[in-house]
Structure formats: structure tokens, C-alpha cells
């Protein structure tokens, strides 16, 4: 069995924007995950969704990796941004858009 920590580390480092979530971007299985998907879609940011429901070791592993007890978890350029509440707060304050801009990730919608 591959080491969950290694798989997670690889996802975080090889994708500019990665969302660890319940379900998929097309079909979120939890309201909190769905909210972050909506925000990312609204901003038109390309991202990879990792469905933690597919693999129990990833589901627990991401909590250990981030020292963060809940899912979803958003990573941008290898940096942990936060969960649903923080992502939403940042989006509403325009800080998330700024973060993407600062990291050189194109945002379609200006808010």
C-alpha cells in the first residue's frame, strides 16, 4: 500500500490548486465541499478535486498532513489556505482573489 502522506504530498506539490473534498467537483457529497467548489467555479480557477471518500487512508491522512480536522481543505501552490469557512470569508473579502493573483493563478471573475 502506498503511503498516504506521500500521495497527498505529491498532489499538493504537483497541482497549483487542489481541493481535498467529499465527492467530486461535478458531484459534491457534502455542503461544505460544495461551497468551496462553487467559489472556485465562480472564479474560473482550474483545480484538481481529490475525493477523500474514495480512500479512507487519504481521508485520515489529509487531516494529519494539515493538522486540520475537517474536510474540505484547499491548497494553493503547496500552501494550506483553509477549510470552507476560511475560504468563504476570504472570497467575500476579496482576499482569495488576491491570493490567486499573487500566486500567478488566473482568475476569470473580478469581484
Amino acid at each position: 500500500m502506498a503511503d498516504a502522506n506521500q500521495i497527498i504530498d505529491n498532489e499538493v506539490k504537483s497541482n497549483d490548486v487542489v481541493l481535498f473534498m467529499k465527492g467530486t467537483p461535478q458531484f459534491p457529497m457534502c455542503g461544505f465541499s460544495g461551497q468551496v467548489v462553487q467559489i472556485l467555479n465562480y472564479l474560473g480557477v482550474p483545480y484538481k478535486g481529490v475525493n477523500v471518500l474514495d480512500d479512507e487512508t487519504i481521508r485520515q491522512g489529509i487531516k494529519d498532513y494539515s493538522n486540520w480536522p475537517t474536510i474540505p481543505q484547499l491548497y494553493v501552490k503547496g500552501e494550506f489556505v483553509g477549510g470552507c469557512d476560511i475560504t468563504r470569508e476570504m472570497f467575500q473579502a476579496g482576499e482569495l482573489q488576491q491570493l490567486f493573483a499573487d500566486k500567478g493563478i488566473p482568475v476569470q471573475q473580478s469581484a
Partner: protein
Amino acid sequence: MPMNAHDIESMIKAALPDAVVEIKDLAGDGDHYAATVTSSAFKGKSRVQQHQMVYAALQGRMGGVLHALALTTVTPDN
């Protein structure tokens, strides 16, 4: 067994004594809450760090028995 709002508030206040804690039971089912926590201890901390302080206060219950807590953290002067 879900947690009641009073227990959540008590645990947060035990770790952050000056905290003002406001909890709403979102679904009326004792299982889905929104909490706003105001504390001077959050000063100078990032949002992630502020939330982690509240999660630490909840001693591992967050994500477990407490699976749906929408959290907002505030420093007293903003």
C-alpha cells in the same frame, strides 16, 4: 452522540478564557452549528491559526462527534 451548544461553549472558554462565544444551532438538530468566537488571543494570528486554536480547545471532537461546525473567528477590535 452529538454535542450540545453549552458544552461547545464551555470547552472553548476553558482554553480561551476571554472568548465571547456565540453559537447557533443551524438545523435545530443539535448537530449542525455555527459558532462565532471573539478573543484577544487571536491577535496577530492567521485565520488558519485562529481556527486551529478553537479546534485545539475542542480536543479532537471537531471532525469527529462535531462534524458540522461552521466557524468564524474575530479579534475584539475588528
